[in-house]
């Protein structure tokens, strides 16, 4: 262990080890990139968003009312009913998402505390703050972890502080221990992998004693300012967790359209590209092929949960108050012991409320032996799960904070397999909580916290209605049966205001960010959520595979067969409808063909983003 006792010593340690050359990694070329600043808050923009959001919801309610009461095609209820149910479910999701985005209320930034007494209320001792930096690893390349260690050691603080860096190696690798020794940091391992990452963290907590814990994954590289900018929040003794935005500094930037066309078609292509970019603004082809940019999630979704104390921990890049984590773990533990001991009593004793102090004590002791103290829930989504448990604890009103500024950098999934593993874990973990320990209906959370968590869970159910939206145009193009009774002014008079207002509202509501790619990826990732849902419904355990930190080679087309199928089926439906229309057959209306044609085209484009991602290769592999 190194770098204890103060910023001066800490920086000295960092300088000593930074003379070792970096390994050869694809992301070295991105080392100089700096993160984007958080979105600026503007009260007028927020007001416009809120007005548009209300107008959207009113227009949506009018549209849905009309859909249910006056537009159903009674000749094809088998088609009309599922679609209108899907639209209604999507509208519920819209209401929840609107509530999530309603307002931005950042926690006030405060100066970094000089001593532990300043962030522990009346009980805190007047001594330097102690921080443990946990770098959890399992199978990642040791040299990659070395970079994270070095950056962790380079963390600065304006007051005396004790920072201890620990490598938590669940892979029990001598090479990792060697790297830790070379870097002069603590190496912690164990002889099993119980609880996976959560178990790894618990094991480290048992062997450390810092006041605060910084959670890092193997590829998380904290900035020197991380503690300087975040420990101030802990001046409020109720603040339990501060989550900082995750920033993937290796996301491909793509190539400008005019450069790409210029390269492929010479001067004419460049000129055409330039004209298009003049009209529509800069266009980058191949930018962020996996829609990994997490800005929408952190800078919009999570940040706006600050207003309701509902931001949740996402693991890497978060700072935890040890007391809070242990407090909640002990409460959970005692409740479990109490419940288990009570269940062990004879039924007659329970019915008659007969107590025997000696027997009760024995039962509690036995129950305590059976239960485990788990500061972090042993779960695939241990981060959100642990936050829910914190929020449910009303005896202390624990708070979670989303700090809007990026304080670390990390690596994005570089191939579709890694991306799929990561997203499957998110979906499966969240759905598993929903079905097996649903916090929405349990006591503890405030109304708005319930709404925020429901918004998260609901988004994973969206695959069900998205599937209906993907199939609806195909059904029309094949059968000629419209799900609404007519695509007339009657339909557009209700649908158009809703759809237009919705687009405008979310343009203003996410002002400064581009949400298109995220939106279509959300639609295109329906097979993933469906698989997760199917696994959870069958009570199949969602496994904990570590998300690969380095690019996986080989064909990944098998991962996108559902998307390819949707594309092919929609194209076939286009062809079929075109042939029948040309032959004067079919029961199509012109309006129906146009609306469903565009709808199908939108679906094909959305699916194509995921299919293209399966073929994506970085520049150096092309």
């Amino acid at each position, binding site marked *: 262990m190194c770098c204890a006792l103060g910023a001066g010593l800490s920086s000295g340690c960092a300088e000593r080890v930074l003379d070792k050359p970096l390994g050869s990694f694809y992301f070295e070329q991105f080392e100089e990139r700096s993160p984007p600043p958080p979105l600026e808050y503007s009260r007028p923009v927020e007001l416009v968003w809120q007005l548009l959001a209300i107008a959207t919801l009113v227009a949506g309610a009018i549209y849905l009312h009309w859909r249910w009461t006056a537009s159903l095609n009674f000749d094809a209820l088998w088609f009309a009913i599922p679609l209108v149910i899907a639209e209604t479910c999507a509208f519920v999701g819209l209401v929840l998402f609107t509530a999530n985005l309603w307002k931005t209320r950042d926690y006030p930034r405060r100066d970094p505390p000089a001593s532990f007494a300043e962030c522990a209320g009346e009980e805190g001792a007047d001594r330097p703050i102690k921080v443990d930096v946990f770098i959890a690893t399992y199978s990642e390349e040791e040299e990659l972890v070395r970079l994270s260690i070095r950056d962790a050691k380079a963390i600065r603080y304006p007051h005396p502080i004790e920072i201890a860096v620990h490598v938590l190696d669940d892979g029990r690798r001598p090479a990792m221990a060697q790297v830790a020794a070379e870097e002069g940091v603590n190496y912690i391992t164990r002889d099993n992998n119980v609880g996976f990452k959560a178990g790894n963290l618990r094991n480290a907590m048992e062997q450390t004693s810092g006041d605060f814990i910084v959670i890092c994954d193997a590829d998380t590289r904290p900035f020197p300012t991380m503690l300087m900018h975040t420990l101030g929040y802990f001046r409020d003794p109720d603040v339990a967790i501060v989550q900082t935005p995750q920033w993937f500094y290796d996301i491909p930037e793509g190539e400008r359209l005019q450069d790409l066309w210029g390269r492929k078609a010479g001067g004419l292509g460049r000129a055409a590209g330039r004209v298009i970019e003049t009209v529509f603004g800069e266009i980058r082809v191949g930018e962020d092929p996996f829609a990994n940019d997490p800005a929408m999630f952190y800078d919009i979704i999570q940040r706006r949960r600050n207003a309701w104390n509902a931001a949740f921990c996402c693991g890497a890049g978060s700072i935890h108050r040890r007391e809070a984590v242990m407090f909640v773990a002990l409460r959970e533990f005692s409740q479990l012991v109490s419940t288990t001991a009570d269940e062990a009593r004879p039924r007659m004793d329970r019915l008659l409320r007969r107590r025997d102090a000696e027997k009760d004590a024995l039962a509690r002791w036995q129950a305590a032996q059976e239960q485990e103290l788990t500061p972090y829930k042993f779960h695939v989504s241990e981060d959100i799960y642990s936050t829910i448990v914190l929020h449910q604890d009303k005896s202390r009103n624990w708070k979670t904070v989303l700090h809007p500024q990026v304080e670390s950098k990390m690596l994005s999934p570089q191939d579709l397999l890694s991306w799929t593993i990561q997203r499957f874990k998110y979906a499966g973990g969240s759905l598993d909580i929903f079905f097996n320990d649903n916090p929405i209906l349990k006591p503890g959370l405030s109304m708005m916290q319930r709404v925020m968590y429901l918004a998260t869970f609901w988004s994973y159910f969206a695959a069900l209605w998205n599937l209906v939206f993907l199939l609806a145009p195909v059904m029309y193009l094949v059968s000629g049966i419209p799900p609404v009774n*007519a695509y007339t002014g009657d339909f557009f008079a209700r649908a158009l205001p809703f759809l237009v207002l919705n687009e*405008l509202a979310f343009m203003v509501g996410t002002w400064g960010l581009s*949400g298109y790619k995220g939106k279509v990826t959300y639609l295109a990732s329906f097979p993933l959520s469906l698989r997760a849902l199917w696994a959870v419904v069958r009570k199949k355990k969602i496994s904990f595979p570590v998300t690969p930190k380095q690019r996986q080679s080989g064909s990944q087309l098998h991962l996108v067969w559902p998307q390819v199928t949707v594309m092919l089926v929609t194209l076939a439906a286009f062809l079929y409808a075109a042939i029948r229309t040309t032959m004067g057959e079919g029961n199509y209306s012109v309006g129906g063909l146009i609306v469903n044609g565009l709808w199908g085209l939108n679906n094909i484009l959305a699916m194509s983003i995921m299919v293209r991602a399966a073929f994506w290769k970085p520049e150096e592999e092309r």
Partner: protein
Amino acid sequence: MKFHEKLRRGRSHLLIVVLMIVTAIIVVSIEDENLTRETGKATPDHQAPLRAGAGEGAIPAQGREARSALPLSAPSGSDGDVVQLGAYLTRNQAQVGWEEIAKKARSAGIGVESIEVLIVQAHWDGRAVHRLLVRPEGESAAADLCSELKALDLECFTREVRP
């Protein structure tokens, strides 16, 4: 970040808005044109004939000249003239339409209680429409009823039911 850059990032929303509005205009124009062909006369108001609100969703009743455009299937198997009072997008709207017409007729002293009311589905340009028909009893009763209704500013026309 400058306004221009923020707008660039939000352009997909604007492009979708433009696409949706243009699509709506094109589709409604085409449907209007078809409607005009179907009814044999220009729609007086772009919205009114297509709106599906109670009482307003009627596709205007056709003139006699359009009779051959839509062959009417026999509503109950018997021959004779019927009065078409309108065509609606849904059966519900046709029922609401009849209730309003009947109310107006009753208040003018026209007896409509014993009239047989028929809502007949037909297909027009690939979609279902629901014709609101009434069959008064007696020779030339249909023509008489239609004249009386027209005097109340209600549109109608008679059409022959083919066996």
